Each structure stands twice: as structure tokens, then as C-alpha cells.
């Protein structure tokens, strides 16, 4: 969830301020590396880890985080003229 929030904010930063080496390191490097798809799918198969409820929780919380962070970042980070 932290990775999703950071990635959302960085995406807006890259959209509006351009792609620098540091931002490239942070978005596809750090944020994408911090979050993992494989563990979510594997744990969805484990009923004791929550199974499909765990998958659903991940989906819902991720969408909620994006819905909060993306508009907020777009408001805070202005377009550079």
C-alpha cells in the first residue's frame, strides 16, 4: 500500500516535472520493487492467509489509495511553465 501511494505521487511528479534519473530510480526501481504481484496471487491460494479475501482487500485498498493520492498530488504539484 505504501508503494502504491508513493508510485501514484511519483507518477504525477514525472508527468508534470519530467523524468529525471532519480525519479526513474524511484518509480520503476524502488516503488515497483517494493510492491509485489506474485506474493498476492500466491497468498490468494492459501485459505489460512485469507485466500481471495486477501486479494480483494489488496484491490480495494489500492484503488482507495490511488483515488486519494493521485488527485491530491495533482493539486499539490503544479505544472511547470
Amino acid at each position, binding site marked *: 500500500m505504501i*508503494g*502504491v501511494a*508513493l*508510485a*501514484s505521487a511519483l*507518477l504525477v511528479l514525472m508527468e508534470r516535472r519530467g523524468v529525471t534519473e532519480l525519479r526513474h530510480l524511484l518509480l*520503476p*526501481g524502488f*516503488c*515497483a*520493487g*517494493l*510492491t*509485489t*504481484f*506474485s*506474493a*498476492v*496471487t*500466491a497468498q*490468494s*491460494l492459501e485459505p489460512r492467509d485469507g485466500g481471495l479475501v486477501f*486479494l480483494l482487500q*489488496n*484491490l480495494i485498498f*489500492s*484503488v482507495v489509495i*490511488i483515488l486519494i493520492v*493521485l488527485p491530491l498530488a495533482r493539486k499539490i504539484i503544479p505544472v511547470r511553465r
Partner: protein
Amino acid sequence: MNTLYVILGAAIGAPARFAIDQYIRRFTRLPYGIFLVNILGSFLLGVTFKSSEHMHDLFAIGFAGAFTTWSTFMLDIFLAYELRRYKEAALNLTLSLGFGIVAAWCGLQLA
């Protein structure tokens, strides 16, 4: 020592994902690269799930963990939705999760 295995796996997994995604994005604007790495990574995690501790740390936690990405997957879906590409967003969501779970299950059966 375990941390070193995770670091080594992640150091290979993250650049491999980036390289595959960048290569596939040359031919299409659709997120096929992320789809591909997520399915491959889910399979690999399943295969190495029950292996020895060091192999598990290197491949399942380090490599597959850094190779696959949840944040980019979610952002791709959300941005497609924002751009009113509803079919693309729905297909990405259902196919990625469907194939991802099946790939992880197949990997676990082979383990």
C-alpha cells in the same frame, strides 16, 4: 545471510522487469510487459515456494518479489480507467489476476 540472498534476487529481478517492460513498450502502448512479468513471477514464486530456505529467499522473495509489481499493475488499470479505456482496464485486471493465480497454482503443483 538470508538478507543477502533477497538483495541478490531483487538486484536481478527489478532490472529484468524494467528491461522486459521497456522492450515490449517499444511495440505497444498496452501494458503487456507488466502482464508478462507478473505471470512469469507468479509461476516462479509457486515453483520455488517449497524449495530450500536459501533458494526460497533468492528466487521467491528476492527475484519474484522485485520482478513482479503490484503498484504499476494498479496504476496501469487506474490510468486506463481515467482515459475511459474501460475494456482495457477490465481486461488487464481480470486477465492479470486470473492468469497470475493459475500460474502460481501451476507452480505450486510442480514444486
